[in-house]
C-alpha cells in the first residue's frame, strides 16, 4: 500500500479527534480552533493524496484551501469581536 495513503488515514483519525472539539467546545472560539485545525489537516491530506496518485495538477486544490480557509476564521472572529462589518 502506498505510504502516502496510510498517512492520509492517520490524518483522518486526527480529524476525528479534532471534530470532538467542534462538537464539545463550550464556546464558539473553541469550535473555531477545531475548524482551523481540521483545515490544516485537510490541506495536508490533499497534498498527500495528490502525491499518492502522482497527479501534479491536484495540488492546486490544496493551495486554494490554504489561502481561503483563513477567511472563514476571520469572518467568525470579526463577528465575535463585535462592531459592524
Amino acid at each position, binding site marked *: 500500500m502506498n*505510504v*502516502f495513503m496510510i*498517512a492520509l488515514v*492517520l*490524518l483522518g*483519525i*486526527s*480529524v476525528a*479527534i*479534532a471534530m*470532538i*472539539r467542534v462538537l464539545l467546545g463550550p*464556546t*464558539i*472560539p*473553541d469550535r*473555531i*480552533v*477545531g475548524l*482551523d*485545525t481540521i483545515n*490544516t*489537516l485537510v*490541506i*495536508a491530506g490533499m*497534498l*498527500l493524496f*495528490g*502525491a499518492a496518485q*502522482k497527479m*501534479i495538477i491536484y*495540488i*492546486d486544490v*490544496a*493551495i486554494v484551501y*490554504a*489561502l481561503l*480557509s*483563513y477567511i472563514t*476564521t*476571520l469572518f*467568525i*472572529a*470579526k*463577528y*465575535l*469581536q*463585535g462592531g459592524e462589518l
Partner: protein
Amino acid sequence: MIWEIIYICLGIGIFFNLLASIGLIRFPDVYTRLHAGTKCTTFGGIFISLAVIIYGLWKWYDGDDAMISLSIHAFFAMLAILLTNPTGAHAIARAAHMSGVKPAKAVVDELEEVKND
C-alpha cells in the same frame, strides 16, 4: 535512502498533527488550545509538505520533468499555511478575549486590566 527521509518527514508530520488534536482535547481553555492547534498543525503541515516536496524533487531528478511542478505547488501551499495560520490564531484569540472568554487558571491577565481601566 530518499524513501527513508520521506518516511521520517511523514512520521514527524503525522505525530505532530495527532498531538495537536490530542492537545485540543486535553487543554482547558481556548488560549491553550490555540497553542496546540496552531503550533503543532503548522509544524506538522510543514513537514508533510516537505515530504511531498522531497518526493517531487526526487522524481524530477529521476527524469520526470513535470514533477517539479508538484514541489512548487506544495511549496506554495506550505507558504500559505505558514502565513495564515498564526494570523488566524491571533484573530481567534483576540475575538475570544473581546467576546469575554476568560483564560482558565490564569495567574495574570494584563489585557483585562487595561480593558477595565
